[in-house]
C-alpha cells in the first residue's frame, strides 16, 4: 500500500529504514539493559534493588545489615513477622513488635517555661557567693536533717542515671536495671541515699556533660547532704563490705580516683576518672563547677575545646571536649587554686577499670575476702567503653555483657550470703542455699557481718 503511494524504490527505502530502525531500537534496549545490570541507573537503582524492594514490601526478612548495626537489626530479624501490620493494629497484645517511640510526644500544658538567655555566655546559673553561710544557717534551722549521721559519717547522696528513652541495645535496659539494683544494695548497707536521674536538665550540656547542671542542682536542693557521690551507670559495686574512709577526706572537697604525678607532671588525659567521684556540698564546689562548665556547651564551643584538650593533654585522641579531660586540664593548669582541696585517691578502687579486674574474681574469692576495696577485692568495677545501652561500644559485645554478669554476681553474692544463698557460679543467674533455715534465726550471723554492720548503725 505504501509502495503504491510512494513508488517502488521509495517503498523499499522506507522498508529498509524501518527495519534498520527496529534493529537500532532493539540494540539500544539491549545496551541499556546491560548497563543497568552492571552500573545501575542512579536513583532508579539496579535491578537487584528492585527485587529487594519488592521483597521488603512483602515484609520478608531483611538480611542486609551494616556490621555495626547488628545488635538492633538482629533482634528485628529474629522477631520477624509483619512489623507494619502489628503496629497498625492498636489492639495488638504483643510487646515484641511495638515501637515505644511512637508514644513519646511533647505537649504544652500551659505552664510557663524559663529558658537561659542564649546571647549570654553559658553559665550553670546565677553566681552564688555565700553558699557556705546560707547552708550553715539552714542546717541550724533544721536539726532533724543533720549533715553528719554520726561522728565522722557524713550524709552522702549517690547520684547516677540514664536516658529516659529505651536503650538502643535490646538488653541494655536489663543491665541498667541490674546495675541500679547493685547500687541500691550497697547504699542500703551503708546508709547512703540514692538519686537516679532520668532527665536532661540542660539541652546544651548533653552527653557526659549532663552531670554538671544536675550536680549543681542537687547540691543546692539538698543542703543536708555533705558529700555528693557521682557514679556512672556502667560502674558496679563489687565490695559490699568496704566503707569509704571518711576521716581521710575531712579537709578536702573533691575526691577522685587517679594519680598526682599523672595529672600535675604528665597531664595525662586518663590520669583521673570522673566516672566515680565525691564532691563536698560547699562554695568551693560551686566555684569548681562554674570553672568546669565552659568547655561543655554543645556545638562549636565543645569542638574547639576538644582541640585545645587534645593539644594540651598527653595521649588524648581527637574528639570533642569531655568532662574528664576538662578536669585534668583545669587541675594541671590551675594547680595553685584547686589542688590543695583535691584528693587523688589510689589506695583503693573508687573507680576500677574492668579490663584488669574481671578475670581475677575467682582468684580473689580464693585468696581474700570483702572489705579491702583495692586490687585484692575492688570496691568498684567500672565498665568503661562497654556502653551496654548503645548500639556499639569499644569492646566486643560478648565479653562486655558476660563480664558485667560476672561482676554483678560477684557483688550480689555478698548480699545473698546475708540470707543464706549464693549464685551457682559467677556466670549463673541461679542461686543455691549455703545455710539452712533454722528454728532459732535470731542467733544466726552472716559471715561478713553485713546484716547489721557498724556503718549502718544510727546514732544512739
Amino acid at each position, binding site marked *: 500500500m505504501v509502495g503504491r503511494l510512494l513508488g517502488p524504490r521509495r517503498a523499499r527505502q522506507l522498508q529498509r529504514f524501518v527495519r534498520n530502525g527496529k534493529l537500532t531500537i532493539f540494540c539500544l534496549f539491549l545496551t541499556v539493559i546491560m548497563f543497568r*545490570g552492571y552500573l545501575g541507573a542512579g536513583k532508579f537503582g539496579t535491578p537487584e534493588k528492585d527485587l529487594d524492594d519488592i521483597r521488603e514490601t512483602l515484609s520478608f526478612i531483611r538480611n542486609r545489615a551494616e556490621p555495626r548495626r547488628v545488635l538492633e537489626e538482629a533482634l528485628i530479624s529474629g522477631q520477624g513477622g509483619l512489623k507494619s501490620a502489628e503496629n497498625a493494629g492498636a489492639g*495488638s497484645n504483643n510487646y515484641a513488635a*511495638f515501637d515505644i517511640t511512637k508514644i*513519646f510526644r511533647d505537649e504544652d500544658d500551659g505552664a510557663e517555661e524559663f529558658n537561659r538567655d542564649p546571647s549570654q555566655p553559658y553559665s550553670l546559673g546565677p553566681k552564688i557567693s555565700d553558699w557556705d553561710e546560707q547552708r550553715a544557717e539552714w542546717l541550724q534551722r533544721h536539726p532533724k536533717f543533720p549533715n553528719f549521721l554520726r561522728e565522722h559519717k557524713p550524709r552522702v547522696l549517690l547520684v547516677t542515671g540514664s536516658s529516659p528513652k529505651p536503650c538502643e541495645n535490646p538488653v541494655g535496659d536489663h543491665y541498667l536495671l541490674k546495675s541500679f539494683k547493685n547500687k541500691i544494695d550497697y547504699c542500703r548497707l551503708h546508709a547512703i541515699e*540514692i538519686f537516679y536521674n532520668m532527665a536532661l536538665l540542660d539541652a546544651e550540656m548533653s552527653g557526659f556533660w549532663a552531670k554538671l547542671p544536675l550536680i549543681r542542682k542537687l547540691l*543546692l536542693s539538698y543542703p543536708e547532704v555533705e558529700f555528693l557521690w557521682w557514679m556512672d551507670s556502667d560502674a558496679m559495686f563489687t565490695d559490699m563490705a568496704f566503707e569509704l574512709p571518711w576521716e581521710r577526706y575531712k579537709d578536702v572537697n573533691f575526691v577522685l580516683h587517679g594519680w598526682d604525678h599523672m595529672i600535675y607532671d604528665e597531664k595525662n588525659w586518663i590520669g583521673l576518672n570522673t566516672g566515680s567521684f565525691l564532691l563536698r556540698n560547699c562554695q568551693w564546689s560551686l566555684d569548681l563547677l562554674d570553672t568546669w562548665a565552659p568547655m561543655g556547651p554543645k556545638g562549636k564551643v565543645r569542638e574547639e575545646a576538644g582541640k585545645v584538650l587534645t593539644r594540651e593533654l598527653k595521649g588524648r585522641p581527637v574528639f570533642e571536649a569531655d568532662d574528664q579531660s576538662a578536669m585534668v586540664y583545669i587541675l594541671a593548669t590551675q594547680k595553685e587554686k584547686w589542688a590543695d582541696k583535691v584528693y587523688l585517691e589510689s589506695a583503693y578502687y573508687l573507680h576500677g577499670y574492668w579490663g584488669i579486674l574481671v578475670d581475677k574474681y575467682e582468684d580473689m574469692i580464693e585468696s581474700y575476702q570483702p572489705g579491702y576495696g583495692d586490687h585484692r577485692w575492688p570496691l568498684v568495677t567500672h565498665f568503661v567503653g562497654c556502653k551496654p545501652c548503645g548500639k556499639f561500644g569499644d569492646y566486643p559485645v560478648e565479653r562486655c555483657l558476660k563480664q558485667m554478669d560476672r561482676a554483678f554476681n560477684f557483688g550480689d553474692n555478698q548480699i545473698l550470703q546475708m540470707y543464706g544463698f549464693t549464685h551457682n557460679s559467677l556466670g549463673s543467674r541461679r*542461686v543455691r542455699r549455703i545455710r539452712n533455715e533454722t528454728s*532459732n534465726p535470731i542467733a544466726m550471723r552472716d559471715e561478713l557481718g553485713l546484716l547489721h554492720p557498724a556503718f549502718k548503725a544510727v546514732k544512739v
Partner: protein
Amino acid sequence: MGSGGAFPAQKRLPMTHGGARGRGAPLLLRGRQINKTLHNIKITILCSFVTILVLRGTIGIGSLVTSEADAENQHLIEETNRILAEIRSDKDPSDPDEGPERFLSLNDTFSLGPRISNWDEDRKVWLEKNPQFPNFVKGKPRILLVTGSQPAPCDNAIGDHYLLKALKNKIDYCRIHGIEILYNMAHLDKEMAGYWAKLPLLRRLMLSHPEVEWIWWMDSDALFTDMVFEIPVSKYKDYNMVIHGYPDLLFDQKSWIALNTGSFLFRNCQWSLDLLDAWAPMGPKGPLREEAGKILTASLKGRPAFEADDQSALIYLFLSQKERWMSKVYVENSFYLHGFWEGLVDQYEEVIEKYHPGLGDARWPFVTHFVGCKPCGSYGDYPVERCLKSMERAFNFADNQVLNLYGFRHRGLVSPNIKRIRNETVAPLVNVDQFDIRHAARHTAEPQS
C-alpha cells in the same frame, strides 16, 4: 526478530534454494544443510549470549554467589542472636545439669522452714540488745519495701525499660519518706516460683531483719503516683496486716479479686510467720498447685480455671479461717494502697486541675497498679499501646512531683523531655523549704487519726 544485516545468508538462501534443481542437487543440498546448521548455531549462540546479558541485567549474579561482605554480616548477626538468646534463656551453660524436675506430690507437705514459735520474744530481746538498730526511727516505724523481678532479661526490651522506670519511681518515694528498699532478682525457692516467690522471700527478710517493723511487698508493675501521701501507720497499731480490698466483696460475694496482694504490709511478728505458714501449702509447683487451683476456682466467685495463685489462696484462707486471722487484718480502701490502673490513668489531667498531692485516694491515687499489662512478658491481657502509654503517663505524673523541687516538669504526660518552670536563683533554700515534700509536709501535716 526481523531479518537483519547479520544474516546475509538468508537473502541468498531462496536463490540457492531456487536454483537447487538439476545435477548438483545432492551436493548442494548437503552444503545447504551445513550452511543452515552453522547458521542456526550462530543464531543459537547469539541468542543465548543475549539471554545471559538480559538475565544478568535484571537479576544480577549476586543471588547466585554470596559476596564476602554479606557472609560476614550473616555471621555477625548469627553470633549476636546466639549471645542474646543465651542471655535471655533460662538455661545457664555454666550450671550443672540438674536432672528432671521433681515436683512435690499431693501427699507431701511443704513448709517454708522449721517452725518458729517465739519470734515476738526473740525479737524484743534482740532490739533491746541492739539499740543502734531501733525499730522506730525519728518517731516512725522502720519500713522495708520489697519488690523484684525475674533474674533473666524480659522477653522484650521494653519490659526491662519499664522495670527500670518503676524502680526509679519507688526509689524516689522511699527517699522522700525514709523507707528502705530491697529489690530481689533471685529465685530463692524453686518450688515457690512465680507469684508465690514472695512468700519465702518475705519470711527470710523478716527473720534476718528484726529491726524492721513493717515489711511492705509491692509488685514490680505498681507505681507510686502520690509522692506526698504517707501511710497512716498509727491507724494500724492493733493490726498485723494491711491489704487493699473490699470487705463486702470478700465475705458476701467471695470474689477472687476482693483483696489485692500486689501491695500489702506485714508486721514483723509471730502472727505473720504463722500466716505465711498457713498460706504457703497451695503454692508448690506441680500437682499441689494444680489441685489447689481447682479448689479455688470452685470456691471463689469469678475465678477462671488456672493453677493456684497467692491472691486467691489468701482470700480462701481468710474465708475458711475467718476467726483466726481477720481480727488482725485491716482491709483498707480509704486510700489506694493498690489502685487498678484502668480507671485511673485517664483522669490524671482532671486530678491535676482539681486536687493536690497528699490525698492518696480517688482524688489523687496513691498507687497505680498495672495489673494484667505484663510488659516483661511477650503478651499482656490488654492492648500494648494502651498499657505502655498509660505506664508512661503514670510515671511522668509521679516524676513531675519529684522534679517540682528542682523547678522542672515534663513536657506533657507522654514526654520524656522536661522544661524549666522556675528560674535559678541566688537563694535556692527558699525554694527548698517551700517545695521539698519532706519539709513542706511538716507544715501541712494532716492530723493523725
